[in-house]
């Protein structure tokens, strides 16, 4: 069984934000929702690196653990999905998420956040809607995964900085790169998300 993960090779990321745009377009997310974002560390200084970050689809996902209504769950492929019908918009998943992944359609004063939205690994939703249906698309976005395709952000990354796929395979690709070029800034978020790092 494949364990789906993301890996951002920060030594290749050029902060072009194509992954962000691809995600917004593919999933038709509303204004203000950023399922994926690019954060630049040490901006303008030597050692500057950009990292594309979204839901990492963690092992033992803390969002699912703290959710008061248990509406978040990992699938058998390790993709963390949620059921928007049950979400009460309490905001706890954002406090627990190590990567700032959960998004809310409204500002959130007086608990008016609305239903949480986050990266679904382009795998549709965790609700009762039929996979690939129009109802699922309207609520959760694209279900490329059901068609055997990987998330569009990683698929169209021009420098192949952002990798998606089975954890062992993308870790191997990243390890080969680091060995060949002689340096690497690490698999960002892997220790926090998956309790293990890429050994190079």
């Amino acid at each position, binding site marked *: 069984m494949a364990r789906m993960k993301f890996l951002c090779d920060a030594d290749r990321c050029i902060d072009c934000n194509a992954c962000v745009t691809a995600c917004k377009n593919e999933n038709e997310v509303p204004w203000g929702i950023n399922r994926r974002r690019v*954060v630049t560390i*040490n901006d303008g200084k*030597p050692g500057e690196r950009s990292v594309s970050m979204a839901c990492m689809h963690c092992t033992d996902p803390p969002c699912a653990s703290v959710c008061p*209504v248990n509406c978040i769950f990992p699938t058998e492929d390790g993709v963390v999905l949620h059921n928007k019908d049950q979400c009460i918009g*309490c905001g706890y998943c*954002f406090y*627990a*998420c190590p990567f700032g992944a959960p998004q809310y359609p409204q500002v959130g004063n007086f*608990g008016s956040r609305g239903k949480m939205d986050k990266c679904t690994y382009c795998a549709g939703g965790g609700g009762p809607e039929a996979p690939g249906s129009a109802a699922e698309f309207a609520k959760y976005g694209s279900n490329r995964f059901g068609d055997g395709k990987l998330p569009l952000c990683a698929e169209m990354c021009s420098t192949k900085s952002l990798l998606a796929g089975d954890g062992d395979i993308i870790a191997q690709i990243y390890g080969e790169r680091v060995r060949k070029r002689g*340096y690497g800034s690490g698999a960002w978020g892997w220790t926090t998300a998956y309790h293990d790092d890429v050994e190079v």
Partner: protein
Amino acid sequence: MVMTFLARFRLATFVLALLAIAAAAPVFAQKVNPDGAPNPTASVTSQRELLQQVPRITGRIDIPDTKASVLIQPAGRTWDYFHQVLLRRGGAIVILGTVLLLAIGYLILGRLRISAGRSGQKVVRFKAFERFAHWLTAASFIILGLTGLNITFGKAALLPIVGPDTFAAISQVAKYVHNFTSFAFVAGLVLITVIFFKDNLLEKVDIDWLKQGGGFIKNRHAPAGRFNFGEKIVFWLSISAGIAVSASGFLLLFPFYGTDILGMQLAQMVHAVVAILFVALILAHIYIGTVGMEGAFEAMGTGEVDLNWAKEHHDQWIAKKLAGENGRGEPTATPAE
């Protein structure tokens, strides 16, 4: 002088440590070539090194959502551990433990009777407005307590009974009820503080009350003014806890206004821990005001207490009250107004 210097030194170190945690600016080690020139390609900002230096890796983003600038915060998992393990276990122990202790107390002490029996004469203890302030706070507290406990314990206690969809619907309503009942609670808290502040200031008689065992030992009379020492403790703890839950609650009502992710996590932790202790305190308060003591509930119920109850539990208050009324030429122990 030595002590003050030491104290200042300690304070300064503490503040510096806090600042070091707060200023989460990534530090990076610049690699240089053998000739001494910096090598920007090899000067890798490794996430592993960064996480050893700062608790939260932050950077620059292109979107206006400032909280998105936090790239990685492993503390999210720590907060998860607090919420799912420490809070749930601790909260269950504190609340169930309090209920158990009160049950044991009831089995040992039973209901504290009015030792002289009822006199049949009534004296006014709480005016209508005072009772309104109390019941406004009490009703909103119970609503807030149940809807709040649902967030932490509902999925273990209620979800298996009603099913996930019904439970989600209940929790959605409970969340809004919790958010808006908070205003009634704060209003009640302010009223209670203003109305009862003066009578809850500590006096010398409180020491005597403690020495006499607070009225829990038979044949020993514990003297008290309008409020005894036990009630004063409930008052001051409630005011303190009320301020703490209100302040942290308003931070949670307006997420990320003046707070960052750490601030939101801390606000939730303060809110939850203080609320659990507050519930335990109020459970004891409800016990002694209802089944624990004969003649106590009517003080807040009808506002009038039996004269013998007043003499037994609040001798100085009733003496002063009767003296004052006699001074105005009114009959002793007036019936209901």
